[in-house]
């Protein structure tokens, strides 16, 4: 509560309507290279654009670290996984899209962000509150868009980066791009070795000994190729490939001294798209192919689990423009095939077909967008998911936005077909459904920009795994969640420095009582902090071509278990980091020195899993344009 009051004091500054900037120029600064479904359907959405270049993310920081510092989301880290939660939902309610192609595993529905280096993408956009009308299953808490580096700047660029850091981190990357008015081509290769051999205090062993995490090494590599070709005035061709290869040791919690768990995952994602534009019509044909190769072994427990999943998506969209009205209609056909040694039938597939249509009216002061998605799935009924978005400018400095939309998450292949280890899937599962309602305001005053959104999100038929009467774990649609809260963000920008602060209050409660003995009813969900606060301070020193960045984040305590008399919590914690970036005077070299966990705080985001203490990272970028 104290934090909240503090925030109110900071935020409720005397407000003056006379300002230099207008809401349109500030809030829509981006140059759209290529129209996307997101750019077409963002009316009423609460959107965070995390621009890596602006805040100097030159290190190979992982996506999850980046998210936890630069936004108001809680990131849970345990074993090999690192998963963010948005708006009080669970980690499987976040849809990650690369070029609007799903990244989430079709086997378990999760997108693991732990080893996705942030510097390999130049723009991350987060749509809070889900976007299933546009992007389909899995988008309930949020949709994260990661987009590769592309431009038409008429420049060639070569960047070679080398980084070393504490706990055995070493990373190398090469980026090359060539662009003209007609073509934009980029290629990126990256490799990472992180031994993760950090020291921690084992609070589960008598005497609290200092131990070194000796199991948790990661070897990762990725490749990217991106191409956009403007064939002529009317036709454009684009192609992208992204390959990711990870090999890691999976650490256990501190009470388990031995682990031989290993995870290997490899993914290849590719798409080609063709766009044809006439005077008021635009056609886009896109075909994507995705392949995942996954293997988890734990030989001491006789576990050797693998899957190979293939997905092909054919997507055709027509856009019709008429004065201030836009109509889009798209048809998307998805084919999934998965071969899994833990499924009843080793080879399984499913198909779904979706029609997405949207109608947008752009007026001088208001914008309205109606989206309707109807999906037909080969195995289960998918509900109709509509969205209504509305925005209204009060004047040049104030904009109101609102959105009401329905979202859903289909049962995953694991939910349906898994059989192993005393667990069995369930073919009768229904998709989870959710209604999201939100109301937001964007304000500008002089050099301040303020965004605030209140929301209410109801999730029905949530899938949970529970033992049945024969003590076999099985998923059922048996949970109801109501999440509501407020998200605030304040930015201040001057010539010298930038300040960004965010505060989130999330109340997410269980709304279904399983029995008279259920103590979780109407209590906050486990591992969802009530409050989160973040500060980012960027100080520019142009005279020495340098930049200092300070980041601070506070995570409130989280519940770890319910009890009739005293619920258990993990303590809240604060983390800060400091970065110093410097461009050399006579050489095309940028140096970045970063200290993570500046105060050497020991903290847990998941019960009994330790985290690294103070960590030093040094990056050298050789960049020629």
């Amino acid at each position: 509560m104290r934090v909240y009051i503090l925030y109110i004091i900071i935020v409720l500054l005397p407000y003056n309507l006379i300002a230099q900037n207008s809401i349109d120029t500030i809030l829509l600064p981006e140059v759209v290279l290529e129209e996307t479904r997101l750019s077409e359907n963002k009316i009423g959405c609460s959107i965070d654009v995390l621009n890596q270049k602006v805040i100097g993310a030159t290190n190979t920081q992982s996506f999850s670290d980046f998210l936890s510092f630069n936004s108001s989301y809680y990131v849970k880290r345990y074993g090999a996984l690192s998963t963010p939660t948005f708006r009080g939902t669970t980690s499987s309610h976040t849809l990650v899209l690369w070029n609007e192609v799903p990244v989430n595993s079709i086997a378990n529905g999760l997108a693991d962000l732990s080893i996705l280096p942030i510097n390999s993408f130049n723009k991350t956009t987060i749509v809070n509150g889900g976007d299933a009308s546009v992007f389909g299953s899995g988008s309930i808490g949020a949709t994260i868009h990661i987009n590769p580096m592309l431009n038409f700047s008429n420049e060639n660029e070569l960047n070679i980066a080398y980084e070393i850091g504490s706990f055995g981190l070493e990373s190398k990357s090469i980026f090359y791009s060539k662009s003209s008015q007609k073509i934009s081509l980029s290629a990126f290769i990256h490799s990472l070795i992180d031994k993760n051999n950090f020291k921690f205090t084992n609070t589960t062993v008598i005497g609290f000994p200092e131990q070194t995490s000796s199991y948790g090494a990661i070897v990762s590599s990725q490749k990217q190729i991106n191409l956009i070709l403007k064939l002529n005035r009317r036709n454009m061709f684009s192609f992208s490939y992204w390959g990711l290869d990870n090999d890691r040791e999976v650490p256990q919690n501190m009470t388990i001294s031995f682990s031989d768990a290993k995870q290997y995952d490899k993914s290849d994602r590719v798409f080609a798209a063709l766009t044809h534009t006439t005077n008021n019509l635009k056609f886009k044909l896109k075909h994507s192919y995705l392949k995942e190769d996954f293997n988890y072994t734990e030989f001491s427990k006789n576990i050797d689990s693998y899957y190979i999943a293939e997905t092909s998506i054919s997507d055709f969209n027509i856009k019709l423009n008429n004065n201030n009205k836009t109509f889009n209609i798209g048809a998307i056909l998805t084919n999934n095939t998965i071969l899994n040694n833990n499924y009843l039938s080793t080879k399984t597939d499913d198909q779904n077909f979706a029609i997405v249509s949207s109608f947008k009216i752009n007026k001088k002061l208001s914008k309205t967008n109606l989206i309707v998605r109807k999906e037909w799935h080969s195995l289960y009924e998918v509900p109709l998911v509509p969205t209504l978005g509305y925005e209204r400018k009060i004047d040049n400095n104030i904009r109101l936005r609102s959105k009401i939309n329905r979202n859903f998450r289909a049962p995953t292949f694991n939910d349906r077909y898994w059989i192993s280890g005393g667990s069995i899937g369930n073919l009768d599962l229904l998709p989870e459904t959710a209604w999201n309602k939100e109301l937001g305001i964007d304000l500008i005053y002089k050099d301040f920009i303020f965004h605030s959104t209140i929301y209410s999100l109801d999730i029905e038929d949530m899938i949970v795994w529970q033992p049945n009467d024969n003590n076999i774990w099985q998923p059922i649609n048996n949970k109801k969640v109501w999440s509501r809260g407020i998200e605030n963000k304040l930015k201040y920008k001057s010539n010298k420095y930038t300040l960004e602060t965010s505060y989130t209050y999330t109340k997410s409660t269980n709304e279904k009582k399983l029995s008279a003995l259920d103590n979780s009813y109407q209590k906050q969900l486990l591992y969802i902090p009530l409050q989160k606060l973040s500060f980012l301070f960027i100080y520019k020193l142009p005279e020495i071509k340098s930049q200092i960045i300070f980041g601070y984040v506070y995570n409130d305590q989280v519940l770890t278990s319910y009890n009739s008399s005293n619920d258990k919590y993990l303590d809240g914690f604060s983390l800060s980091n400091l970065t110093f970036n410097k461009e050399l005077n006579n050489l095309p070299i940028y140096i970045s020195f970063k200290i993570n966990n500046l105060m050497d705080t020991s903290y847990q985001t998941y019960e009994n899993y330790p985290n690294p203490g103070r960590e030093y990272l040094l990056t050298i970028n050789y960049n020629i344009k």
Partner: protein
Amino acid sequence: MKKCIKKLLTISILIGLISSCQKDRSNPEIGGCTDINAINYDSLATINDGTCLYEDTAIVGLYDNGYFVTNEGNFGSGNGSITFISDDGSVANNVYESTNGVPLGDVVQSMSIIGEDAYIVVNNSNKIVVASKDSMIHITEISISQPRYISQVSDNKAYVTSWGNNSIEVIDLTTNTVTNSIPCGVGPESITVNNGLAYVTNVGGWGLDNTVTVIDVASDNVVNTINVGDKPNSAQVDASGNIWVLCGGYTEYDPVTWAVVSQTQGSLVKISNDVVVDSYTFNTGDSPKNLLIDDYGTMLYYLSGGSVFSFNNTASTLDSTALISDSFYRIGYNDNKIYGTDAVDYTQAGYSKEYSTSGVLVNTYNVGIIPGGYCFN
């Protein structure tokens, strides 16, 4: 350029300074009690941290009148615990952690009291924690891969079933060390001792087995392997020396339609002189478990479909109506009382319920996460 070099130098000095702040903490000392005469002597400790406790200083008899509930905790979270419920109805949760300042570990499977000590089997932490039964003060730990249950088989010897090794690990109770390993079937589960022989039910782990391994306790030799029903999970000895084995049965599904292809029924098997003399078959789809026997060695209790059933060892058929209808995870029996655990959603703290042998609910207690076993003094 000169200026620039100077700045760079300054930065690198700064970096050096900050880096050198990092302490080198190799070869950490392990704090603990290093006095061999203390009841909490820790053989792993390298430095005496002043926590030694002796017979006269230790709290004695704190847990005399009542019983323990083992709570598995959430898999992977390391939050398994022990609850003590005293005869006056007061509940003390987390007794091990509140005494020792550290959690027990991941998946507290079971606990047995042997002599003056409590042997707590922590399955996924691959260890058995030995603590004083009177004070819960930590004494030592024994490393065993995926242990399930521990049973004293002779004066100085205990057997532990290990899923990790598919074996019986032999513990010398004087030194609390593993002295031998006896291979048995797949996924050995319960241990029942009768007439110098240990009967180990091989439940098959997550797969399939249908045997009981018989071990001569004196020599640690396997003397017999008895075929029973599929997935034998628990056994008891009755007043006449017969071994009763409860088998859960096994279901195989069609890979395409998910229809049940083959299903072996659960069964209650009676063994006399290492020969199966009787078998009572359950209905298809029932998966009975957790066989118990009363103090007189005549009435058997088990769990099927979450409800408690009873079976007199002279009855000719299985009872079709439950003694207690509920959705229990595990059950226990002691001194004319039946106990059952309710794990609620298998995430939050569960409940333990106490019944009379006629099935009347006496008390309900909020215990730890996934209560999965009882240990009576």
